């Protein structure tokens, strides 16, 4: 069945059947939305995790590559509830004249469910992003992360399992000597993507020096520190001056790396930490060796 309205549907090969987009449509066959209504509708759709294309008279706002498109409009003519394009995109039409933004969003949610498209997971998208203009492929992030976030592809460091990253933990970005790891949702620059200054680079290399002072195994050290904190005997046991100093240094390091307490809590047992750290380190060494040859 063909689509009665001139929608932006030139379709490259389907890539994701789960794609779902809402078009706020004002092209041929529809009246424009009153401005306030348009703003409220787009805002409410975005808040619900829905992507929106606002299509003005005669305009087009990009193509849907696959999946389903819901067209919301003040239609002047009768539209079918559902139609399929030649390229396999499913198009749904809903007349929202006289409906509030909340009612229109509810309709969109119903259509999404009817099209078997899952609701977006309630996950704060927190994961490292590598700035390859800065990265020197040194593999420090790979050997540091215990959660298998990083991997190597054709000799190059990559973020391979971003969903395994610990929310709000930017620690790997603090061990990167090149300030090449970004967390776009981090509070402070340059980790949030702000311009990197010469001072930033100097500070970051100092951090790495601290971690090597601690024997390189920051996680084990931090966990050790955490356990000590919990122990009611910690004060008596820590009479040893060197240990006390080391602990002070670790407290500072934990603060410097900005590791949230939840991450400490989720660390595996000391044995497991040793095993994972050795594994990560071996991967990093293997990648470095392979790149040398």
């Amino acid at each position, binding site marked *: 069945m063909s689509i009665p309205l001139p929608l932006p549907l030139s379709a*490259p090969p389907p*890539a*994701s059947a789960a*794609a779902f*987009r809402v078009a706020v449509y004002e092209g041929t066959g529809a009246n424009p939305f009153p*401005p306030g209504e*348009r*703003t409220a509708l*787009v*805002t409410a*759709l*975005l*808040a*619900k*995790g*829905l*992507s*929106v*294309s*606002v*299509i*003005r008279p005669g*305009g*087009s*706002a*990009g*193509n*849907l*590559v*696959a999946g389903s498109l819901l067209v919301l409009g003040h239609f002047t003519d009768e539209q079918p509830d559902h139609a399929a394009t030649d390229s396999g995109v499913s198009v749904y039409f809903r007349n929202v004249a006289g409906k509030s933004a909340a009612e229109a969003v509810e309709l969109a949610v119903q259509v999404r469910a009817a099209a078997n498209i899952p609701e*977006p997971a309630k*996950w*704060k*998208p927190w*994961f490292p*992003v*590598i*700035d*390859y203009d800065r990265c020197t492929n040194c593999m420090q992030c790979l050997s540091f992360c215990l959660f298998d976030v990083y991997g190597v592809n054709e000799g190059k460091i990559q*973020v391979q399992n*971003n*969903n395994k990253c610990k929310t709000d933990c930017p620690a790997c970005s603090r061990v990167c000597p090149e300030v090449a790891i*970004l967390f*776009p*949702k*981090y*509070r402070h*620059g340059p980790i*949030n*993507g*702000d*311009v990197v200054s010469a001072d930033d680079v100097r500070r970051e290399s100092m951090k790495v020096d601290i971690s090597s002072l601690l024997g390189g195994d920051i996680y084990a050290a931090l966990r050790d520190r955490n356990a000590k904190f919990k122990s009611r005997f910690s004060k008596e046991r820590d009479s040893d001056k060197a240990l006390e100093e080391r602990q002070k240094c670790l407290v500072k390091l934990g603060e410097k790396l900005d590791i949230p307490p939840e991450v400490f809590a989720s660390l595996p047992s000391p044995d497991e930490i040793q095993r994972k750290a050795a594994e990560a380190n071996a991967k990093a060494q293997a990648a470095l060796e392979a790149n040398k040859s």
Partner: protein
Amino acid sequence: MTKPLRVLYCHCTYANVVPKATKEEVLRRLTESDVPFDAVPDLCEMSAKKDPALADLAADGCLKIAACYPRAVKWLFHAVGVKLPDTAEVLNMRTDTADAVAAKLLEPPA
């Protein structure tokens, strides 16, 4: 002939890093203009999920993106194998005022 203006707005839905007042005002100005545009809840989420729509959004044309730091946006696209065109302009709602972002966003392409 001038290339068509394509505008992409990121609502940064899942974090509070972009000031609410700024993103709401930019969105209001966009929706009240006569410029067609795409709006996404969260570019970070799309990058994390390797959303194929990112390739389409970055397709040729005069692309302007209202989001956050240009370096972050560039590498979020890169993380899904999409190179932002060199001509793409990223406007930073974390640091710039809504007025400045909206004015640049709605400026007709040169």
